């Protein structure tokens, strides 16, 4: 189906036209009145918006198309930068250095002209991203300060475009008005709360240097041990409130980690605390696909594998809390592992009881053995442990089919049925083998399940 004609418009790159057409049709296909119609309409709308974006991008900038394998990441990054020079520089850079993203800036396709224009010093070449982003606030800073009175709501970090746009729309003034209103509404002291600091050019330069130096220092520390404190400086850096800048710094730190791990041959697992902390700050694992596409899946694997493993450990340890009901999927325990668990139980009981009743004839002890076995195991299964010792060792638990812990009578009944069916071993083993769906005969008869924790 042609989505454009569905919306009653010609293909266009004008998103506003699409939105208008969508809005008109939406009134007849409200989501709660006509869900099916809405779903169709929304699909058309999303498709057209995507097309429109593609049109405008291809007409404005063909460079992105030339590096298709980088499209996703670049588009995303480009969307974050509203400064065309940076975008071009990055596009050129990346498209010509697919294989070596961390290569020194002086080797990239950037012309000298552009370089000098942006006053990028080549000595800290790896930090290209930061420098790019850092430059723009410096440029616009004076203008921003000039406009200080008018746009007091806008921080000095604002780019030139932002400031212009804001002034022309009178946005900050509107916001200010709201503020006054709220002041009148006895919401005092709001005024005094708005002390957004302006960052001067020197301060910005200072921040850039501090961040790069601090990262270097942190890596020196990382050579020795996994000290999270080494990275705490990130929390205290005001410049990182700028999301664009923070993202670029995140990329920078990530690249540094890649080369650090490669150079030092240190296992990422041994620096897990630091990596996890940085992931928490920068949300690397949330953008895993972008990093995989940009750096190559194999290259980033050590870091993400380590980060993911941490997740597993957390998930596993959680399972050891006593839960009133089993949460999570019900997975039946395997036959052979259960056999192992039972063998351990029997062995343990045998050893303990044998030492108590050493001299007694076998015929007497077997009954004591059975009685103790039934009672103790029933108690264990009804306890918060929810399993005999063998079962606990194998990470199983006994529960009702609904996942609840058994009560003591239910557990006793289960043990009796178990003993009975074990006595008819020759017969029951075939039943168990034939049914073989994870539930054994005594599980069925006693209405219980043995599941993985």
């Amino acid at each position: 189906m042609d989505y454009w004609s569905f919306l009653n418009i010609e293909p266009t790159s004008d998103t506003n036209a699409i939105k208008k057409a969508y809005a008109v049709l939406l009134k007849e296909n409200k989501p709660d009145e006509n869900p099916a119609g809405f779903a169709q309409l929304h699909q058309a709308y999303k498709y057209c918006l995507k097309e429109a974006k593609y049109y405008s991008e291809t007409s404005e900038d063909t460079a992105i198309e030339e590096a298709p394998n980088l499209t996703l990441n670049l588009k995303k990054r480009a969307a974050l930068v509203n400064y065309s020079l940076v975008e071009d520089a990055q596009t050129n850079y990346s498209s010509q250095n697919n294989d070596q993203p961390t290569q020194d800036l002086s080797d990239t396709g950037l012309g000298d002209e552009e370089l000098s224009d942006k006053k990028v010093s080549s000595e800290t070449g790896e930090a290209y991203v930061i420098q790019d982003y850092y430059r723009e606030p410096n440029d616009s800073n004076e203008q921003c300060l000039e406009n200080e009175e008018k746009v007091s709501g806008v921080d000095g970090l604002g780019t030139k475009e932002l400031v212009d746009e804001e002034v022309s729309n009178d946005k900050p003034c509107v916001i200010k008005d709201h503020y006054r209103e709220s002041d009148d509404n006895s919401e005092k002291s709001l005024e005094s709360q708005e002390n957004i600091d302006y960052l001067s050019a020197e301060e910005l330069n200072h921040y850039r240097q501090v961040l790069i130096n601090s990262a270097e220092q942190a890596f020196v520390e990382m050579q020795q041990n996994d000290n999270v404190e080494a990275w705490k400086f990130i929390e205290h850096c005001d410049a990182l409130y700028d999301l664009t800048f923070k993202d670029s710094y995140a990329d920078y730190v990530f690249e540094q980690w890649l080369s650090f791990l490669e150079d030092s041959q240190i296992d990422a697992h041994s620096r897990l605390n630091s990596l996890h902390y940085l992931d928490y700050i920068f949300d690397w694992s949330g953008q895993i696909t972008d990093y995989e596409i940009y750096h190559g899946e194999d290259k980033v694997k050590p870091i993400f594998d380590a980060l993911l493993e941490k997740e597993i450990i957390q998930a596993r340890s959680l399972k050891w809390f006593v839960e009133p009901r089993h949460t999570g999927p019900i997975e039946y325990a395997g036959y052979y592992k259960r056999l192992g668990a039972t063998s351990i139980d029997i062995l343990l009981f045998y050893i303990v009881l044998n030492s108590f009743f050493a001299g007694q004839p076998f015929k007497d002890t077997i009954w004591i053995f059975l009685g103790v076995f039934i009672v103790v195991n029933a108690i264990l299964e009804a306890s918060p442990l929810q399993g005999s010792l063998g079962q606990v060792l194998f990470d199983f638990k006994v529960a009702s089919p609904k996942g609840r812990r058994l009560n003591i009578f239910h557990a006793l009944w289960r043990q009796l049925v178990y003993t009975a069916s074990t006595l008819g071993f020759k017969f029951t083993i075939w039943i168990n083998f034939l049914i073989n769906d994870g539930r054994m005969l005594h599980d069925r008869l006693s209405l219980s399940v043995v599941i993985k924790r």
Partner: protein
Amino acid sequence: MTILGIDLGTTNSACAIWRSGEPTLIPNRLDKLLTPSVVGVDHSGEIIIGETAKYRLISHPKQTISVFKRFMGSQQLYRLGKKDFSPVELSALILKSLKEDAEAFLGETITQAVISVPAYFNDVQRKATQQAGELAGLKVERLINEPTAAAMVYGLHESEDTTQFIILDLGGGTFDVTLVEFFAGVMEVHASSGDNFLGGEDFTRILVEQFLQDNDLTAGDLTTGENQHLYSVINSAKHALTAQPLVVVENCLAKQKDNWSLSREYFEQLASPLLMRIRGPIEKTLRDAQVTPQDISQVVLVGGATRMQAFRSLVSKMFRRMPSGHIDPDLVVAMGTAIQAGLKEKSAELKDVVLTDVCPYSLGTEIVNHNDTKGNQGNLFFPIIERNTTVPCSIERSLVTAADNQTEISIGIYQGESRLVKSNIYLGQLDVKVPKAKAGVESITVRYSYDMNGLLEVDVKVDSTGKTVHKTIVNSSDALSEKDILASKKKLDQLKFHPRDSEENRRLVARAERLYESALEERREELGRLISEFEAVLEKQHAKDITIAASRMSEILDALEKDSFF
């Protein structure tokens, strides 16, 4: 037929209706717009709700419960008097009280409601909220996400062509971030993110811990009453900090050594881990929607905790502008629910307004992880509805058998963003039988449908036999059965409530008792005398005398409260 809009909050609740083209807030029996979400029981077994109960938190900590919304959808039980209550039942009590207030205000019976939930509430928590509504005798017409409700209030009169708002909702117990676009009467939610366990209460708790540490105390050294008292003092200190740069807490506990001063800087330093956690969801939302802070035309603050200076300065640093909060952040959600109620009533003024919302988390199933040879990763999560998909939506995916001669496929239903199912939230399971065949031959079609209320339905069709299985997600471990609901309803119906008309006087007594608990020496004696005098007047039941005594009492209490802690 009036539909009541209800904001069922962690700390406070409020309700509103759509009247003559605008949301109208409904005052409660004490003529206040906010009803604290606190439930208590008195010595005669009667249920007390709202402000009266809030005062009793300190004087009767064991008979009063607050902040139970955090445990919605969990197995947590609270003991109140002689009975155990689930969070659902407690919420139902609050809803019932709001419903009564609205009925008294409007003079008509109300049977339908729109209730707000945090955007990040999962399926189980949403179901629980719906059940609470049912228990209170309200048919829940719609569950609306809190930030979306707030956005509607701000966006209703938005005339500009295309604008984007970001809504930051920091309530008592939850934090939600939502990005909304407005154009031509359409309010489109783009992305939502949040933290279900981060709110104003956490900030207070951090301060309380610090206070104890600075005074060489631990929570165990104090009685329950003292702990509650300390909590409320610190909480009001936190509130006071929005108006003044320095707050000094003195004589709050008998065991307190020195005056404890709390400056804004100190607060910010103590709260920095929480402030870091606030940044995460904001960044995630912007990243998901591929939007920069510059694209956003207004930053809207919702929820009482957004009054914190530390929060505001964080937001202005991130967005480089002043956030707007000119509509009372405590009431804006209730107003939004009223707008949604108006939409539901098909009100003429809202004819051209359409709201579309998103599903804030990914929903999917599990698939076999072939790389997992050691068995320590477990199955992989296979998202079917990706996060931030516009709802209602219905998405189909095909799955095939993983093993030869497999006779059954079990479809685990999960919610979350992790690659491994183990780290995601389990919602339920559905089993279908398939004919025996080689691995990968038999296929099933799984359809996830997510409706406007944020509730999920799963359909599975076996392709070869055409057999279908349907499941509305009811979490195996948490949902109440029909029988449970009936039992709860009966239990709640048996409860006695305080008569509405005497509420004001009871509140005065509760307030005086709270002061009594926290006062020391002479003042304590004075208060004790006051309370018994007042209760004596109440017993005589002379309406005129009571009015006079009550007004005198409240004057005295006002004066006492003023110079109590700060």
